[in-house]
């Protein structure tokens, strides 16, 4: 949710105050900033990298980079927007590194053999949560990011546009297209 909305429903200090306190070495402020933003940063990176371990690593790097460079945060944008910009750079760097490793002859191994999961495994996978997550993963990146940031973290379309390097209108369209596709897929899935 936006900072203004958060302030209306939550009496804890706003990000600007927490950042100032953290700059002065206030560990409690740092802790609260991390608690407040670790979810959105992780989910944002999961949407970009589509890998839980990579997203966790990139989230850790994002926070370390951001928090050790707090003086670089001028406060022109929301703290969350600034964090997501750092996260996007981190994801790009990680993707480049992964791509280079894949080109290395040592890593030029055949893909693992995939087998059909057993009926039991299939049954476990068909939980409601996994079904939705699998459908989300099928969405094109911009739609997936818009749906995730809007639905899971309550970002405004303006914030989504800044985070995904698009326009506010595109973010809105991507969100609505993404939700419509999800509904079609999940309802089709229920019928089959």
């Amino acid at each position, binding site marked *: 949710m936006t900072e203004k909305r958060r302030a209306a429903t939550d009496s804890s200090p706003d990000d600007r105050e927490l950042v100032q306190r953290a700059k002065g*070495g206030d560990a409690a402020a740092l802790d609260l900033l991390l608690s407040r933003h*670790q979810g959105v940063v992780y989910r944002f990176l999961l949407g970009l990298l589509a890998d839980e371990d990579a997203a966790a690593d990139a989230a850790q790097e994002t926070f370390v980079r951001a928090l050790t460079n707090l003086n670089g945060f001028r406060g022109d944008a929301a703290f969350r927007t600034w964090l997501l910009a750092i996260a996007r750079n981190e994801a790009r760097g990680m993707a480049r590194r992964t791509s280079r490793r894949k080109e290395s002859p040592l890593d030029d191994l055949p893909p693992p053999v995939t087998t059909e999961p057993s009926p039991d495994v299939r049954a476990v996978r068909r939980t409601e949560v996994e079904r939705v997550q699998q459908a989300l993963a099928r969405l094109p990146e911009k739609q997936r990011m818009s749906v995730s940031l809007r639905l899971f973290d309550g970002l405004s379309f303006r914030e989504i546009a800044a985070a995904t390097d698009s326009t506010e209108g595109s973010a809105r369209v991507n969100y609505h297209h993404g939700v419509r596709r999800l509904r079609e897929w999940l309802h089709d899935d229920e019928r089959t």
Partner: protein
Amino acid sequence: MNENDQGSPDVSGCSEALDLLPLRAQNALEAREGRALQRHLSRCSDCAAEVAFLEEVVRARPEPPQGLKVAVLGRLRVDESGITEATPAGWGALVSAVRGSQRRVAGWGLSVAAMVVLALGIGILWSDGPTTEADGLITSVLLAAQEDEAEEWMVAGAPVLDGLPDEVLLSLMTEMD
């Protein structure tokens, strides 16, 4: 909908309601917005169905790994000058482990000091008499133990570990294992 409205927001149309549905699904609506939206949902089955669907999606929200915050904090040094030195990736857990060992060792400090004093005392009794060197050693061990009580990072009879380079901490860890 105009969010600056002081009164009850206008959620008479589906488009206004649709903008609020994601926030409703996250329980992030202000009270007056919630009431207005509820009025709309009570007479619009399409939006009610949409809210049920969005809530189903929100239940699948991925959560960050539990250790993420601890891992980040383990790589930061926070003091009056702000947040400074970052430990490279992969070292956070090691540093935490070393510091945990320091705390454990520090807790043993007083007991170790007592045993050393006892051993020295027995040695003095068996010798011809107390020597100046033995007195000095007992005093230094007791002083170290007192400092240990005051500063948890200090280990009795050992240099302060906090502030040592990571390479040295790593070698200490290896020796302790």
